[in-house]
Each structure stands twice: as structure tokens, then as C-alpha cells.
């Protein structure tokens, strides 16, 4: 059902693409100054890090703009994911909203002329200086809607990255040290396997398996590979390192019992709840779990970066966009600027989120501080490598199918690489043709 809806949404968006460009000239409230209402939408829950911080931002905005009414509505992720194109192509849309980063979402709408070019504002207000290059990747889109270069169409406010979460209690009980290299990591996992414990939780039916593969591949990768794979600068050879190394190592980990074969059919939620229940010593997954783990886990746990990796799966979070149909653009820019201020960014950090321009000194909790320091370290050395399913539309399902085959050992690494190479190449060819 979920898939069906996605497909339907894609079809709708495609239909929009055909007629959208002409239709969007309807109400051109270009820079309408003197607007007295700011219509603001986002889809973070009220008690999440972003929800708390943005509530504060709204409060600051109201103080600085007396006489302006802020009409905030919390939306369903699903609704924005599916309908953003239709909503902002009408006069009923918001003046500023949170939207999903990426080629298929913000990229597509920007290429249809539905999003406001924020380049001038980014320079004027210093967003281009505040955000590191790998964070800017998801903010800028070419005229074809491909991220990485071109005009600014969005402003990220928070970040996310993939790391290793581990159960400290289990590590102590089995006498395992926190690994700092990939070798130490395999040794640690050997210890667990020797004691009859499956060391690494993952989920073959959703994103975690693909991200684990990508982390392994990134162990042998450099920035040039990421540019080739994600931004199509050069063709990618799937049967050479780093991708070959990633698939081979993944298969080896399965063979050695680091990963349970039952994980082939597991969902991300299963992986997460197994970790919360204290059944798995480690999982490799993203910072989006952090807040939930913090509130729900009762044992002692912590995180470390994937050992030895300079590059890590991760990116900016979702972005603020200003629809072309916005009737209060100047107010929208002001609001975005407020969300970038230190006090708002610190609130994201203090509530278990990852601020994009966070100052670790302002974070009170030691574990939270480490989360942000790690992110800042990755971001500073240009180490955000995005996600494996980003390059081409529909690639998520290809990766899921591929790595399920690897987890249940029905396919060899070579076969899996073949299976994921073709849709990638076809997809890239399609994008280049347009």
C-alpha cells in the first residue's frame, strides 16, 4: 500500500511537471513586502529536537515582528512527501515550509519553478559561510534539479549521520573494548560470536542493510568516488573497490555470523526495538534514533563513529524552502535566519538533535555533546557521503532486494553488484539525457 501510494505520488508529480511550469505564474506575489501573516509548515513532532527548537524560533520571530501573525501548522510527513507540488502550486500553500532534500523532491520542484531562488539571501545573510560544503550539497540544485551545484533553493537546519550505537553493559560483560579500527571491530565481533551472541543488528527489508554496505564501501573510498557515485561526475565501476570491497566484506560478515540471517526480513523498527530491548550489542544506523534511544533505553549505551572511516553516510536534514507562491517572502527569509541563530541551534543540540552550526560548548549533556562533536568533525573534513539510495529514483527498492539476497546468502556478492549496477547505470543515463 505504501509503495502504491509512492508510485501514485510519483505519477502525479510527473503530471505536474508537464503542466506545472506554465501554471505557476498564477499568483506571483514577488517579494510582497508589508505582509502581515506568515504561514509556516513543518512536520517534526512537538517534543522532537527540531520541534522544540523551532517553537523557540517562532517565539523569537514574533518578538521581532510585532504585528505579524504566525500561522503555524504541523503537517503529516506523508502529506508533504506526496502533495508538496500540488500544494505550493495553489494559492493555499504556506509561505515557508520544511521539505525533503534530494533530487526527487526539492530538486524536482525547483526545476519546475515552484521554489524561490535563495542564493542572494544565502550570501547576504551568511548562510553560505555557516554551512560546510557537504551540507550545502543538499541546499543547491542545478536547473535540471540535480543537487550539488547551482542556486540555493533550501536551507538545512539540522544534520544527520550514520554511526555505531553500542550497548555498554554487553561490552563490559563480554570484555569487549570500543574498536577504533575496522580490524578491532571484527575482533570485537569475533568475541561476541564466540560467546554465541550475534554482534550486529541490521534490517534487510529496509534502509539499514544498504547503509551498512555503504559504510563498508566508504572504508575504501575517497571524495572522488562520492562525487562520481552521487553527482555522476564519472562513471562508477561496481566491480571494483570501493563497492566490491563493500559487498565482499558484507558477505563475509554474514558468513562469519556477525549478522543474523533472520535479519533479511527485518524492518528498521525491529532492529531498533531489539537494540532498545538490549538484545543486540551494536547497530549501525543514523542519528535519527538518538532521541528515541535516549528516552527509551534503560541500560548504559553510547555511540562511536564507524571505526576507521573518514567518510560516513549522512547529510543535512530536511530543508526550509520558500515556495514561489509565498506571499511573505521577506518574513520567510527572516524566519529561516532565526533558525540558524546560536540559541535555536543549541536547542536542537540539547534535545538530542544534530544542529548544522552547533557549538559543542553550549551543549550541557556529555553524550549529546559527543554526538555533535562527531558530526562537526565529519562535516569539517567534508566527510558526509550522503546515502546509497540517493543517486537514482527508485534505487531504494533495488538496494533492499540486493542486500536481502546477500543476508540470506541466496546470491554471491558479484551477483548482487550486477543486480544493483544496472538500475544505477540506466537511471544515471536517464538523468543525463534530460
Amino acid at each position, binding site marked *: 500500500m505504501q509503495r502504491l501510494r509512492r508510485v501514485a505520488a510519483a505519477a502525479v508529480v510527473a503530471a505536474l511537471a508537464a503542466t506545472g511550469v506554465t501554471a505557476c505564474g498564477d499568483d506571483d506575489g514577488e517579494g510582497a513586502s508589508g505582509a502581515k501573516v506568515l504561514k509556516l509548515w513543518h512536520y517534526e513532532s*512537538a517534543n522532537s529536537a527540531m520541534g522544540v527548537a523551532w517553537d523557540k524560533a517562532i517565539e523569537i520571530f514574533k518578538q521581532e515582528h510585532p504585528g505579524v501573525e504566525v500561522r503555524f501548522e*504541523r503537517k503529516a510527513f506523508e502529506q508533504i512527501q506526496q502533495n508538496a507540488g500540488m500544494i505550493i502550486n495553489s494559492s493555499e500553500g504556506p509561505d515557508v515550509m520544511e521539505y525533503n532534500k534530494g533530487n526527487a523532491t526539492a530538486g524536482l520542484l525547483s526545476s519546475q519553478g515552484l521554489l524561490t531562488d535563495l542564493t542572494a539571501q544565502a550570501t547576504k545573510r551568511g548562510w553560505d559561510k555557516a554551512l560546510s560544503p557537504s551540507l550545502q550539497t543538499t541546499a543547491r540544485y542545478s536547473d535540471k534539479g540535480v543537487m550539488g551545484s547551482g542556486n540555493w533553493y533550501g536551507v538545512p537546519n539540522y544534520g544527520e549521520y550514520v554511526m555505531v550505537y553500542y550497548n555498554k553493559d554487553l561490552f563490559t560483560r563480554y570484555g569487549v573494548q570500543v574498536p577504533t579500527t575496522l580490524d578491532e571491530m571484527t575482533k570485537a565481533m569475533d568475541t561476541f560470536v564466540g560467546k554465541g551472541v550475534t554482534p550486529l543488528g541490521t534490517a534487510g527489508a529496509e534502509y539499514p542493510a544498504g547503509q551498512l554496505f555503504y559504510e563498508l564501501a566508504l572504508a575504501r573510498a575517497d571524495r572522488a568516488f562520492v562525487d562520481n557515485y552521487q553527482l555522476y561526475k564519472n562513471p562508477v565501476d561496481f566491480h571494483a573497490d570501493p563497492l566490491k570491497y563493500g559487498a565482499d566484506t558484507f558477505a563475509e560478515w554474514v558468513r562469519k555470523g556477525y549478522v543474523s540471517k533472520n535479519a533479511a526480513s527485518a524492518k528498521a523498527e525491529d532492529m531498533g526495538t531489539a537494540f532498545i530491548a538490549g538484545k543486540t550489542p551494536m547497530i549501525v544506523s543514523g542519528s*535519527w534514533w538518538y532521541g528515541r534511544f535516549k528516552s527509551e533505553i534503560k541500560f548504559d549505551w553510547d555511540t562511536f563513529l564507524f571505526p576507521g572511516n573518514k567518510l560516513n553516510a549522512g547529510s543535512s536534514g530536511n530543508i526550509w524552502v520558500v515556495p514561489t507562491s509565498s506571499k511573505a517572502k521577506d518574513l520567510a527569509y527572516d524566519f529561516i535566519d532565526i533558525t540558524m541563530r546560536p540559541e535555536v541551534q543549541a536547542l536542537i543540540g540539547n534535545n538530542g538533535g544534530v544542529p548544522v552550526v552547533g557549538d559543542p560548548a553550549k551543549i550541557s549533556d556529555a553524550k549529546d555533546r559527543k554526538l555533535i562533536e562527531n558530526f562537526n568533525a565529519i562535516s569539517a573534513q567534508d566527510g558526509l557521503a550522503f546515502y546509497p539510495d540517493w543517486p537514482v529514483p527508485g534505487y531504494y527498492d533495488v538496494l533492499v532486494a540486493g542486500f536481502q539476497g546477500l543476508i540470506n546468502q541466496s546470491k554471491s556478492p558479484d551477483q548482487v553488484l550486477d543486480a544493483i549496477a544496472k538500475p544505477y547505470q540506466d537511471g544515471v543515463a536517464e538523468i543525463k539525457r534530460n
Partner: protein
Amino acid sequence: MAVTLTPPARARRVPDRHHRGVTRWIVLALVTAAALAMLVPFAFMLLNAFKSPGDYSTNGPLSWPSEFYTKGLRTYWEQVDFPVKLWNSTLIAGSVAVLAVLVSLFNAYALGVGRVRGRLWIIGLFLLANMLPQESLIYPLYHFAKEAGLYNTRLAVIIIFTVIQSAFGTYLLASVLGTFPRTLLEAAALDGAGKWRILWRVVLPNLRPTLSVLLVFFFIWTWNEFLIPLVMLIDNQTQTVPVALASLQGDRLMDAPTTNAGSLLSLVPAILFFLIFQRTLARGITAGAEK
């Protein structure tokens, strides 16, 4: 076919309705098992609606709640402003149910009793509206609604579902009215009743049980609709209950206990509605049986 070919089995003892022995018990057991199997998901929903998120994550969905946790229900109620959604859903589903039954009745009267030329094709065309996946209708509907200034209004959804539901209603009622006793209509006509009077005084009373079943079905179907309300109603002030429920599902995270609590709250009105009208439903289904 098979019946005519086999020789009539006169020798076999005709079983007495009250003495079927073991088979009756087996059937009873099977029906009970099926009924219980249908209730299992509801039981799980109930179980998890009163569990704290931490409890759910630690002990899984099958465990007994360690405490009676009602914060999920309260969070859902406040977060989505449930009374507003409830009113929207009731308004939309209620209007659609009434309007669609009326439209179906008019259509079916013309097609079934009036014997319009080519009515089979017309009915086929109506059915098409029901068979088309809503996904393919969405973009045109969006476009028309926007042009007509109805985008983001409850009226748009009411109109759309009145048409979609009455398509099915027309099909059903037209076949029912196709077999409506002609003599009754002729008698009424001889007594000097016009078309309008016949509809209200002769046809309607006879159809009442069927119409009330349709009303209940239309209400519940419209209540559960997701895609079209999701696309058409973008303001929190106009949204329906199923759309509100979807707002609990995040990008990468889900909150199972709150979702369960929300489902429970969202289900209650539909169940209440069903229980209230359950008697008419049962009567309607057997209405044709006792001729």
C-alpha cells in the same frame, strides 16, 4: 450441470434440520475460530494502545503492558486536535452518505423504472467511476478543484465522494428497481400519481431497507477514505481522521503505541455508528429474502 447428470439420490435420508450431529459442531467451531482470528488484530491494537513507548520497544508488541499508560491517547487527542477532525469526518461522511443515497435513488429511478434507452451502457459508465483507481483521478480532480476555487475545502471532498459512492449506489439500485413489480407502478399511475409522487409514495417505502444499508456503507467507506482527503484537504482545520492518523508516522521513525492509541480513537466513531445502525443493516440484507 452436475446436478442434472447425477441420478436423483432418493435413497439418501433427508437430514433433519435439528439433528445434523457432528457437522454442526464442526461448523460452529470453525466460525468461532474465524471470528476470533478476525478479532486478533483488534486485541493487539487494544493491548498496545495502553503501553508506553519504552515498554513497547523493550518488551515487544505481544507483552502485557507493565502499566496502564494513557498518555498515548491524550497525546494523539491534543496533537491532532481530534475534536476538529472528528467533526470534519462526520460532516463529510454524513453529507456524502445522505447525498449519495439521494443521487443514487434519482439515477436508479430513471434507469431502472424509467427504462432509459441504452441504460446498460450508462450503468457500465457509472461503474467505471468506481473501478478506476483513485490514483488516476487525483490530478484531474486537483486541477478542477483548484480552477473552481474548491481546493482545500470540505465541499470538494463531499462532491467527489457523492459522485463516486452514488456510482455504486446507482448500479445496485438500478438492478433492484429493474425487478420492481410493474403492477404496483401501473396501479399507482392509474390512481393518478405522477412520476414524482410514485417515487416518494411507492418506490421509496419499498426501497427503504436497501437505502439504509447503502447509507451505512457510504458513511463507513467515506469515513475510511485516505488518498483524496489527503490531497484535497491541506489545512489542519479541514482534515479528516484518517489523515490525522497518518501524521503520526514520521520520515524514518514511528511511534507504535501512539499510532495504536490513535487508531483506537479513530475507530470508535465508526464502530458506534455501525452499532447504532446495525439493526437496519441486518434487516436490509434479508429484505429481499421474504417475498
